[in-house]
């Protein structure tokens, strides 16, 4: 990939229920905010790409509705992934690397409040013999949590500590939806959703939208916004057949961390798309992040807008690198049951 810079990022305050807001009303504020941050307008943007998922809202063509939030006169070069917007960012990076695009706008949006997220996510699994069983997302996650506990990779105490730390961080994030940690007694007494997970272990159902602008080095330099660049990005997917996967580890993430040469990087800050407490503990160990500040934004446990949360991990890493005197950032995005599909980005503060 070419040198690609992030020059703006915006996120709506995460809500449990965005009430009457439609796609346009969710997206427009964040798009206007990234334009405000850069002084740019849609006419300065060479390529636009969004991420969303129809099943969250329960209506086909959510992205078509959302496009009305963007200026499309004259018509724009635009595309859409039915994925987390982190993959929309990836598509934009390919465009810029190709050489015909200097700047790109990315946005992701999702509303999980209109439906029952647990049932909806069941439709991600094999339609012939798995999804008819309506296995919910939390039960899949619990399968992996149990495996990790039994292998001694993680402990219940570490899971609790991860929640407490996330909530502590979330207190200084104005967009966070939740920031109150349970006491140890409350946590232990709380009814399990799927053993070993209770509601505190699970990211909250959230509504929201986020936007980002990326560009070439020269474009960023001209705006005097060449502070944070994406050094490397890679992503991959594991088998659909969960029975063939070793849930005590992640072949996907081990492969990606080798590609990023993560062991030789001194990562200062990481934002992980960890939607469950055990994933925070697991990923920290798997990726060797013991001495790294992880999920300083509060992470997905403090607010988890489906189809934007991966992009948010990248955006929060950007914000941290831009404002703090540290060099290396790591961002993670994921999709599918038990971290089936993953993306890792190594980002660097340039000045």
């Amino acid at each position, binding site marked *: *990939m070419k040198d690609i810079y992030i020059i703006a990022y915006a996120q709506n305050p995460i809500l449990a229920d965005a009430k009457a807001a439609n796609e346009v009303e969710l997206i427009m504020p964040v798009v206007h905010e990234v334009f405000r941050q850069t002084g740019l307008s849609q006419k300065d943007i060479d390529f636009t790409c969004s991420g969303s*998922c*129809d*099943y969250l809202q*329960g*209506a*086909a*063509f959510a*992205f*078509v*509705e959302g*496009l*009305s939030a*963007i200026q*499309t*006169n*004259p*018509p*724009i*070069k*635009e*595309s*859409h*992934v*039915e*994925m987390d917007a982190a*993959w929309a960012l990836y*598509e934009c990076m*390919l*465009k810029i*690397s*190709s*050489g*015909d695009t200097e700047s790109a706008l990315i946005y992701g949006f999702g509303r999980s409040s209109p439906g029952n997220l647990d049932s*909806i*996510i069941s*439709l*991600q*699994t*094999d*339609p*012939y013999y*798995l*999804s008819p069983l309506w296995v919910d997302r939390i039960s899949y996650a619990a399968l992996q949590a149990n495996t990790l506990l039994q292998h001694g990779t993680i402990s219940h105490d570490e899971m609790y500590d991860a929640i407490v730390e996330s909530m502590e961080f979330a207190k200084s994030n104005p967009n966070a939806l939740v920031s109150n940690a349970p006491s140890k007694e409350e946590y232990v007494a709380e009814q399990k959703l799927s053993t070993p997970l209770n509601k505190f272990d699970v990211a909250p159902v959230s509504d929201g939208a986020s936007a980002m602008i990326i560009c070439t080095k020269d474009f960023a330099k001209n705006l005097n916004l060449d502070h944070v660049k994406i050094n490397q990005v*890679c*992503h*991959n*997917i*594991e*088998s*659909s*057949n969960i029975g063939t996967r070793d849930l005590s580890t992640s*072949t*996907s993430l081990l*492969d990606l961390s080798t590609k990023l040469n993560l062991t030789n990087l001194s990562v200062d800050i990481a934002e992980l798309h960890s939607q469950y407490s055990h994933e925070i503990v697991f990923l920290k160990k798997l990726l060797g992040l013991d001495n790294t500040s992880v999920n300083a934004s509060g992470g997905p446990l403090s607010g988890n807008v489906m189809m934007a949360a991966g992009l948010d991990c990248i955006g929060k890493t950007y914000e941290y690198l831009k404002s703090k005197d540290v060099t290396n950032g790591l961002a993670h995005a994921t*999709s*599918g*049951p038990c971290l*089936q*599909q993953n993306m890792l980005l190594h980002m660097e503060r340039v000045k």
Partner: protein
Amino acid sequence: MIDAAVIGVGQTKYDSKRRDVSVGGLVREAIDNAMKHANVDWDAIDAVILGKAPDMFEGIMMPELSLADAIGAVGKPVLRVHTAGSVGGSTSVIAATHVTSGNFDTVLTVTFEKQSESNATWALSPKYPYSPHINAGAGGYFAPYMREYIRRYNAPENIGWIVAAKDRQNALKNPYAHLQIPNIDEKMVADTPMLWEPLRYLESCPSSDGACALVISNEKLAKGRKAAWIKGMAVRSEGTLSAGRDEVNPQGGQDCASDIYKQAGILNPKDEIDCAEIYVPFSWYEPMWLENLHFCDLGEGWKLTENGTTALDGDLPINMSGGVLSSNPIGASGMIRFGEAALQVMHQANEYQVDGAKLAMGHAYGGASQFFAMWVVGNER
């Protein structure tokens, strides 16, 4: 920019119900055919790009997750594209962008629709409590624009019949085509019942199950072999409810076409492009798109249809394979256009080959005539 070329095209037999295969089996059928055509093995594939129209057409959310094994993506990057009806075209463009970006040597891309496993009409028209249910299907939505075209340019009503008969005659030469109607002619079309005026039954596309796959590579694999080099590719989008849009001749389609002609160094598309596969789900869209894509002046499109220019033996053959009017697995329909254009310049279109085709166009559109994807491919780099 790094050059990219199509080196393999794979399709399935298109049919109203492919009950002999699962969704995974359907996409794998197209993939196997594409990889066999390209003569490549799995270790050559660096990434997989999947495209399809709304998930609700099959009831499978984000199908790249449950199809990872079937599409051979395990351990590889996979991207899932959805840009409404244009998705087969835009997925081809994004797949090629993987190669032109310099990050990948060879990629596999596949698109599909298996409408028989769900109810697409239901998926497209949920009954919102606040909307009047005057929905009359896709034909009912597009028919007013066709009527406006006819009014503007005073086109005779048999133009639609000519297109419908011509594309189905072409389909008889294509064993993959869904509709195979023996002895189809203009009169047979004209005798079918009126659905949405001015559209008759046989002037409308079928609903099909099917998949299409392409293998796209840089010079490492494409050099020195039969390949369809991408000379220009582009996408354009317009907002649905935007004042001042002209849905009959959308600006997005015009800009997208001009963009690819410029990239390919084409000054006169009608003379320089040998043949085109364009997205014609309803008969009247052939003349409408001929004008939109600058193959002729405004109001002249129906005359090219009428005088036989767009027939298989005409000066500018359109939809040699039978087009969307003969096979319509929605998510794949755009990629079929792009792949058929590639087959023409590879001179592998068998019975519907246009003699000596050197430059061919693939075109797709979607939404309310608002999403466009196109490419021009050539037999030389």
